[in-house]
């Protein structure tokens, strides 16, 4: 018998249909992954099980946990179930913990709120659970506060809170999306171990198909609030019936073909660059400490070359990007574009600055919502000595919009009228409009759904052919870097630890850190060949 049975779950918020006849089940000890792109309703399905839907949501159907229908339960009954029979882990570990309470108190609270144990025993149990999730007492006493822990450690605390009462069902909503690949691998291992040890059912929500294929016993693919396909992982990977499922998997592993780069002539030269940040003074008159975010970094980016920069959060990628853009001065070393320094006399060198543009990660936050698209993408014109006016300006805007696959009359719209992918196209149009010699893509596709990401990658490849783009592609996503770059730099703790032709670095990494990164990155199985176990060879005779 299954642990959780969702039958024909329909959900609407203010008469807007969010879920339509969703049915799925989770057995004890089973990992079921619900996957799909944003807006597919996967998180709403999870929240419906928890009974934590927004107040205006109306749900019909059945959500049966251990024989009782959760949709019929009163709020008081649901409070008794949450934390005790169902635990939940969320996406963003940095904000999922109360900053003013110790981790011990927060883990013990799960136990105390259900009156499961007296306080001293609850603290003892909290200790055991924290040990179990890999936070040993020696380094992580109960008196620690969340701000003293890293993202991965905080996620372990969140998991400890969710499993403190050994719930039969654990729901994890994008539990590793905000984490670095090496941390992600550890957290996924932990979750797998907990499922095996406790015989919990795990309902995991994730958009990452590589994680799904690696973790799940069964996969549920959702789109626009409807389950389009579900089945055992091996079987589903081998026999995808729904075109959307096939498209998702293909888009996740999307490959583009870049034109051959021209013969190397240096465009951007970064020479022995160090970037220090001042730390707060140790005392009122104490010496201010320094933190070296970028440490003696040197590389050359040739004209027409597509260079990748990978590394985990905090490695100094963004600091280096800001220094290249001339937004901040460096403490030592030189950054030259076309032989001219990017930063002179306490300010960015405008003559150089107009040859560079940047595309940022967040398609929602990087536009002024009160400006129309034409004004937004014409912004880089202020870098020019004599910006085009009148029809020349309009022609430039129309051309940039056309180049990124939008229509010239989109220029009159506001940014909220566009989807995330379209906004990223607009960001690229904004970068292209002054025909820069170098574009920096700072995690430019990281916030996009896989199908949209595939389209943007195609667009980048097309633009490379049309405009001979030179770019620096900064990302934590190894699979994307692999396909859109010719050469790659691997950065760790402020230093470039490995550099080489992209394919060489990925197939034969030399530095241990690169090896660890590549090993930790979840990989999509090769979908060309069906796995053996699914088609057992029939004995002849």
């Amino acid at each position, binding site marked *: 018998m299954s642990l959780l049975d969702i039958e024909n779950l329909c959900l609407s918020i203010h008469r807007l249909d969010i879920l339509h006849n969703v049915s799925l089940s989770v057995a004890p000890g089973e990992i079921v992954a619900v996957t799909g792109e944003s807006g597919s309703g996967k998180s709403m399905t999870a929240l419906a099980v*928890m009974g*934590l839907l927004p107040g205006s949501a109306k749900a019909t159907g059945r959500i049966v946990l251990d024989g009782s229908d959760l949709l019929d339960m009163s*709020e*008081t009954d649901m*409070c*008794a*179930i*949450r*934390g*005790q029979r169902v*635990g*939940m882990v*969320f996406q*963003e570990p940095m*904000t*999922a*913990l*109360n*900053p*003013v*309470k*110790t981790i011990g108190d927060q883990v013990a*609270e*799960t136990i105390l*709120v*259900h009156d499961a144990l007296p306080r001293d025993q609850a603290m003892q149990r909290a200790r055991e659970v924290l040990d179990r999730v890999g936070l040993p007492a020696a380094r992580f006493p109960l008196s620690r*506060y969340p*701000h*003293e822990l890293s993202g991965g450690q905080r996620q372990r605390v*969140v998991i400890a*809170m*969710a499993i403190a009462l050994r719930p039969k069902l654990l729901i994890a909503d994008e539990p590793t999306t905000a984490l670095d690949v090496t941390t992600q691998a550890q957290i996924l291992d932990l979750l797998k171990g907990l499922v095996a040890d406790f015989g919990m059912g795990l309902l995991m929500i994730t958009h990452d198909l590589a994680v799904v294929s690696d973790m799940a016993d069964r996969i549920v693919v959702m789109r626009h609030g409807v389950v389009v396909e579900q089945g055992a992982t091996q079987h589903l990977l081998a026999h995808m019936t729904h075109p959307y499922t096939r498209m998702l998997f293909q888009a996740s592993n999307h490959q583009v073909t870049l034109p051959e780069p021209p013969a190397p002539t240096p465009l951007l030269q970064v020479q022995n660059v160090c970037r220090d940040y001042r730390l*707060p*003074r*140790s*005392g*009122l008159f104490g010496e201010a400490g320094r933190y070296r975010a970028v440490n003696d970094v040197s590389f050359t980016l040739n004209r027409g070359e597509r260079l990748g920069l990978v590394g985990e959060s905090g490695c100094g990628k963004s600091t280096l990007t800001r220094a290249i853009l001339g937004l901040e001065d460096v403490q030592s070393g030189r950054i030259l574009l076309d032989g001219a320094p990017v930063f002179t006399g306490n300010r960015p060198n405008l003559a150089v600055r107009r040859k560079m543009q940047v595309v940022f990660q967040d398609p929602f936050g990087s536009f002024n919502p009160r400006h129309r698209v034409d004004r937004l993408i014409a912004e880089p014109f202020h870098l020019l000595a004599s910006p085009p006016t009148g029809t020349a300006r309009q022609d430039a805007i129309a051309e940039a919009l056309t180049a990124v696959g939008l229509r010239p009359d989109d220029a009159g719209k506001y940014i909220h009228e566009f989807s995330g992918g379209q906004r990223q196209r607009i960001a690229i149009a904004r970068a292209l409009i002054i025909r820069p010699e170098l574009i920096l893509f700072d995690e430019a596709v990281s916030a996009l759904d896989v199908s949209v990401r595939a389209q943007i990658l195609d667009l980048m490849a097309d633009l490379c052919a049309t405009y001979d783009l030179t770019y620096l592609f900064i990302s934590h996503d190894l699979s994307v870097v692999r396909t859109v770059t010719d050469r790659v730099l691997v950065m760790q703790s402020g230093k470039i630890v490995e550099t080489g032709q992209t394919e060489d670095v990925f197939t034969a990494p030399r530095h241990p850190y690169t090896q660890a990164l590549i090993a930790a990155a979840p990989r999509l199985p090769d979908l060309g060949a069906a796995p053996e176990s699914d088609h057992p060879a029939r004995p002849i005779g």
Partner: protein
Amino acid sequence: MLRYSLKRLMSLLISLAVASVVIFVVIEIAPGDPASFMLGINAQPETVAALRTELGLDVPKWQRYLDWIGGMFRGDFGTSYTYRTPVAEMIADRLWVSLPLALFALALSTLIAFPAGIYAASRRGQPGDVAVMGATQLGVAVPNFWFAMMLVLIFAINLRWFSAGGFVGWEAGFWAGMRSLTLPAVSLALPQAAILARVMRSSLLDILGEDFMRTARAKGLSRRQALWRHGVRNALIPVLTIIGLQFSFLLAGSIIIEQVFYLPGLGRLVFQSISSRDLIVVESVVMLLVFSVILVNFLVDLAYALVDPRLRTRT
């Protein structure tokens, strides 16, 4: 925590030193010579010079600054030019009215604002919230002296529960003293409570939208439990800031209320001594107020650290 407190204490002392110099310089620049002001426009120059010597106005400025600071450390604030009484005594008398009044008003304002703000936040958009917010809107908009007059009309003239003004003095007993401060404290507290309740509400609403509130609910806490255990303490930081600001205002800014109720408070003392060019009194009162503002900020900083562990470890 100790390290943090010591650092805040150091910055308190430095602020005080800087403030004392600024006050001294500004008062020196202010037009009007106390000696000629005291003697009137027909005074002989010799008489003025003699008085200047007597008042110690003829020594170099830096020496007067040091004398002034040194005196304050010994509790000697100098002698009032106008009343010829020690400034320390004058201030102490007034402080015995103003300080209890400020504390009383602050306590009232906090007692009204916290429940009102928390109640409104927990019923966002519902009739209870709308009612509380409407009341606070009124509290912010209506000046406190109008409240004062209404309170006098109702509670002093019609009901005769309190006297309409004046201060009986603490010699009459604690409760008698508090009774004569009640109406002024209430009229001071109402507008402050309205502001504080709004801050509490919006701060709490921000916190209610945080991820960790959802985590708390996922653990099995009810909405109410989550609000009290995880919401209120996190919402306190901006509230504490406003409380600190309000105390400083209440201590010296209550001059209108002091006038309405005929209270011998600090506000009136400042007003009188400015109009009579009694610069030594002005100087001392301003220094005292600056000291109290800086001290309150220090206490608020300590309260921040008690509320938020992230501040304790920040070096």
